[in-house]
């Protein structure tokens, strides 16, 4: 390889240039602030909410139970978690087809935490110009002090974030005591520090690189785009030819478009692109450039919207359609799934019954000449209060259930095992293997009812 080729290739992978996004004010900045406040409030606040005597939202991994407010989910309910994830993915597709990268710009944790870290950075180091000056200045006492303060604040927030994260899996108040006594378990310590470190690294250092290199969604989101998807775009026809000018001058007379080439749209961009170069993969749709440009347009007394939310069709002067097959399909599937999951959670009975036939013998004959099968019944009380249940069996004529107790008490969230015997006169057995049912009913609440099929084996008829 020649040295010149070598040089070009070296620059292709030039070390990333540090981006100092300029602060922006405006409608979309306010919307994002609202989003950040709500989402951060939920994330940091939710583990502290209690319901009765337990944490309202707790993913209790050691007990293999998830509590989400009044609902508690067991491993048997994994289907709901899976459906929830599918719904989330579909919702993402739906909103992407409709309005582009809304998620990236307003709701993604990467965006949200980066914004908070940027806010801290601005409070400590000052505005963009001051940050850049500090970055260039040699390391002296002042720089160490300012940078040190920033990192201490970042690390503090990161550790709090890690603590909150672990607090979703371990009761957060008890976790607080153990943290204060430095007596957290090894796993808790690891994940607290790991998640804190990830926050610090992603929001403090990696920032837009996470979106560009690491995010799977960013890679395939364009597949959901069509010509009617809302994108952020610069109006080339209106803006070009760009150029600086005196205020009050009529741009048309000067042969200029509306873009005054102030580069504010570039300075505010968190991923460091120039929106005037067209739609780019790096654009996370945060609309900071819209706010920045609108402000400039106001100052120049030009109409707003030189950079605006628009669609490819609208730019080309074609009619824009909101309702189109792609959007409708996503909407229909989404609503269908939401309805199905909502319905099945609503009718979900918080009681479970497992019937296990005694594997050691097929059947036995009692002294009275009856055929008997033995079963182990496993009773799950998934309700949040203790319940007493009655068991019955049916499915064959004159089937009798023999058990040690008339009813079984199962504490909230517990499992009880007991054995039960079914007896029947062999004249009532038409075949060797018969289907029978066990039914479980809560004594205080007849709606807590579950039915489970089982096999009843007897002598074969040909004997």
């Amino acid at each position: 390889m020649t040295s010149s080729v070598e040089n070009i290739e070296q620059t292709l992978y030039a070390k990333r240039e540090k981006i100092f996004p300029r602060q922006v004010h405006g409608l979309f900045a306010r919307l994002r602030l609202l989003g950040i406040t709500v989402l951060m409030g939920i994330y940091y606040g939710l583990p502290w909410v209690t319901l009765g005597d337990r944490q309202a939202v707790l993913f209790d991994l050691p007990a293999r139970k998830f509590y989400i407010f009044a609902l508690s989910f067991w491993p048997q309910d994994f289907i709901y978690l899976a459906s929830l994830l599918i719904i989330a993915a579909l919702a993402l597709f739906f909103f992407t087809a409709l309005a582009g990268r809304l998620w990236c710009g307003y709701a993604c944790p990467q965006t949200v935490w980066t914004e908070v870290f940027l806010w801290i950075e601005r409070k400590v180091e000052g505005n963009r110009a001051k940050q850049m000056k500090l970055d260039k200045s040699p390391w002296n006492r002042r720089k160490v002090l300012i940078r040190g303060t920033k990192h201490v604040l970042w690390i503090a927030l990161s550790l709090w974030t890690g603590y909150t994260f672990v607090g979703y899996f371990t009761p957060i108040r008890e976790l607080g005591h153990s943290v204060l006594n430095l007596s957290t378990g090894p796993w808790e310590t690891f994940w607290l520090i790991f998640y804190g470190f990830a926050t610090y690294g992603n929001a403090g250092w990696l920032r837009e690189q996470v979106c560009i290199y690491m995010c799977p969604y960013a890679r395939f989101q364009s597949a959901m785009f069509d010509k009617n998807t809302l994108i952020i775009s610069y109006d080339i026809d209106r803006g070009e030819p760009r150029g600086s000018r005196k205020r009050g001058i009529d741009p048309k007379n000067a042969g200029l478009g509306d873009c005054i080439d102030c580069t504010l749209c570039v300075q505010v961009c968190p991923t460091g692109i120039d929106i005037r170069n067209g739609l780019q993969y790096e654009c996370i749709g945060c609309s900071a450039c819209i706010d920045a440009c609108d402000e400039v347009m106001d100052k120049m007394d030009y109409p707003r919207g030189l950079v605006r939310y628009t669609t490819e069709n609208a730019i080309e002067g074609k009619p824009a359609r909101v309702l189109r097959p792609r959007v409708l399909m996503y909407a229909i599937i989404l609503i269908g799934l939401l309805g199905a999951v909502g319905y099945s959670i609503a009718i979900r009975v918080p009681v479970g019954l497992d019937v296990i036939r005694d594997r050691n013998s097929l059947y036995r004959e009692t002294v009275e000449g009856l055929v008997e099968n033995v079963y182990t019944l496993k009773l799950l009380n998934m309700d949040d209060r203790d319940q007493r249940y009655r068991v019955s069996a049916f499915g064959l004529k004159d089937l009798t259930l023999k058990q040690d107790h008339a009813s079984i008490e199962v504490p909230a969230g517990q499992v009880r095992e007991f054995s039960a015997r079914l007896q029947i006169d062999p004249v009532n057995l038409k075949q060797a293997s018969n289907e029978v049912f066990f039914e479980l009913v809560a004594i205080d609440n007849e709606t807590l009812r579950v039915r489970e099929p089982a096999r009843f084996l007897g002598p074969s008829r040909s004997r």
Partner: protein
Amino acid sequence: MSRKSSPKSQRLVAVLWPSFLVSGVATVLFFVMFDPLPRLANTDLAELSRLGAYNIGFLWFLITAASSWLTCYCQRSPEQLEQTTADA
């Protein structure tokens, strides 16, 4: 198109990050289906708590990382291989 490999840091991320994601999913799926306690009851690991078992299960990460690393390793072009040999 440049055939030179991406910087070390990017390759490191390309190995660690996808394996982290996949091992997370794999760990969840595995432990939804299998409760570690009864399975470990008669082994040397009987003392281990569920949380401990989950975390050790997450070491699945090492396997997925090995797979990602192999992909990266085998992806190198002949030029890069020669370059590496020349450097060494």
